[in-house]
């Protein structure tokens, strides 16, 4: 662990708060809920100057670029003497791979090259740092006992479907926050809050997230299929931990419904929002007014009000406001 991590008795950890791209530009609820939740549980989030994209969305274009972008963000944290919290699993995977590259003997020639590039930006990869995601910082670092002692408003008998997404659990070789084939940390955290969960056949299915960049209709089809499965299996709602996932599952649920030609009414929450509610934090402070899925349907959560936006959220880049189910099929021909 980096040297500046423990500052006083009440504080467990100080971490560089690495938001990536999607969280600071549109998925504000995840950021809001983390900023409110983490200090309550003894984690100080440190905003560092100079962060950029982790590079993962550019991997298909140029892997060299992607690796440098991840390495520079790790360097910034290492210079500040803190570990890093990456709430976005795609960032977390990219950063972890970058760390492995800089650490491994096999890639020492590569790492020297990147160190030279860092120097041109006035940065230095001072030391190895620990890379956390929301799931492991809550479940393994803060721990279930500490979270439990802070619960003031258990969620009540609500059954949620857990959506781990892809990058939180794969590939195992890189080192991920939970198991690839049998993850359980999300379910453990939910049970702690008084809610319940159960496995379902589509639990490890992809939501289509990264595909939104070049095949948006296909991405929304994957999203719609996942939500339809959760709905058909009778869950009260879905919990996620990824901004690329949430921006489709919640923010663009209506677009997904239109794309697959089905009615979808699935309340979708960030895990941090639910934990925040159980800790007695106010819904607005957790960004719950930014969730566009029908979260008010869950009476046990007492979220009140009944306003669901009539129109879908802003269009994805490159798409028009209207998404129809019979949009031309994109893909191989």
């Amino acid at each position: 662990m980096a040297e500046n991590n423990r500052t006083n008795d009440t504080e467990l950890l100080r971490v560089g708060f690495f938001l990536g791209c999607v969280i600071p530009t549109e998925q504000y609820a995840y950021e809001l809920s983390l900023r409110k939740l983490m200090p309550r549980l003894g984690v100080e989030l440190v905003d560092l100057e100079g962060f950029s994209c982790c590079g993962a969305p550019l991997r298909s274009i140029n892997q060299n670029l992607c690796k440098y972008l991840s390495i520079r963000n790790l360097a910034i944290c290492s210079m500040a003497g803190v570990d890093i919290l990456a709430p976005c699993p795609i960032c977390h995977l990219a950063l972890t791979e970058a760390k492995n590259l800089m650490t491994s003997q096999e890639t020492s020639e590569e790492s020297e090259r990147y160190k030279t590039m860092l120097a041109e930006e006035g940065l230095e990869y001072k030391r190895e740092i620990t890379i956390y995601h929301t799931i492991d910082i809550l479940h393994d670092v803060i721990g279930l006992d500490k979270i439990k002692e802070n619960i003031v408003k258990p969620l009540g008998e609500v059954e949620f479907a857990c959506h781990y997404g892809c990058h939180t659990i794969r590939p195992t070789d890189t080192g991920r926050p939970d198991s690839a084939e049998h993850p359980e940390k999300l379910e453990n955290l939910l049970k702690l809050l008084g809610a319940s969960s159960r496995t379902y056949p589509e639990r490890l299915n992809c939501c289509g997230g990264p595909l939104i960049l070049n095949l948006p209709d296909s991405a929304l089809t994957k999203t719609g299929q996942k939500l339809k499965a959760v709905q058909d299996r009778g869950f009260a709602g879905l919990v996620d931990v990824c901004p690329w996932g949430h921006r489709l599952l919640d923010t663009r649920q209506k677009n997904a419904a239109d794309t697959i030609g089905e009615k979808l009414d699935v309340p979708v929450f960030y895990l941090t929002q639910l934990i925040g509610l159980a800790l007695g934090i106010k819904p607005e402070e957790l960004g719950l007014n930014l969730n566009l899925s029908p979260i008010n349907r869950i009476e046990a959560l007492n979220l009140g009000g009944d306003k669901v936006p009539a129109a879908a959220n802003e269009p994805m880049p490159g798409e028009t406001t209207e998404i129809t189910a019979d949009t031309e099929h994109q893909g191989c021909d």
Partner: protein
Amino acid sequence: MSITDLTSMTMPEKENKARIKKMLTKLQEDIPEFCFQCGKCTSGCEAMKLLELEPHKIMSMSKLGFIDELINSDIIWTCITCYKCKERCPQRVAPVEVLYSIKNIAIASGKQVPGEYSNILQSVLVSGLIQAVKEVRTRDLEAKNRDQLGLPPAPAPKDPAKFQQVLMKAATETLG
């Protein structure tokens, strides 16, 4: 073109195949040589049913050197990067990684960049992030920006000009 069309073409390309092999070896990724066509990757592939992506066929084509067809295809861009293939491959071959390398070569050889990829690259070079900071709408259809939500300014590189310079260099440097 469909995967059936691709697999019915012949003429392996030794030079391009060697390039990919070198690229993968340099990036310490596992190379297609070890694939014995068990099909686990395609069974789990999230893009298979919807987009007809069959990773084991891509691996076979790579192994045999049919790189030009792959570079010119749309199929390589259907990978959702779910990493199920990498997770489940008994030979540690990782079709997802082979696909990244093929896509990189496609771009480097001047193929058109699909979808939003040009825009996000441009955005990263200029601002450090893949897209501009957005104003979002609440459930009550109110518009909110970061400031109104009480959030600090979005992250950005300290020296944007230097940042861009270093990135441009990284982007144009080939891996041999």
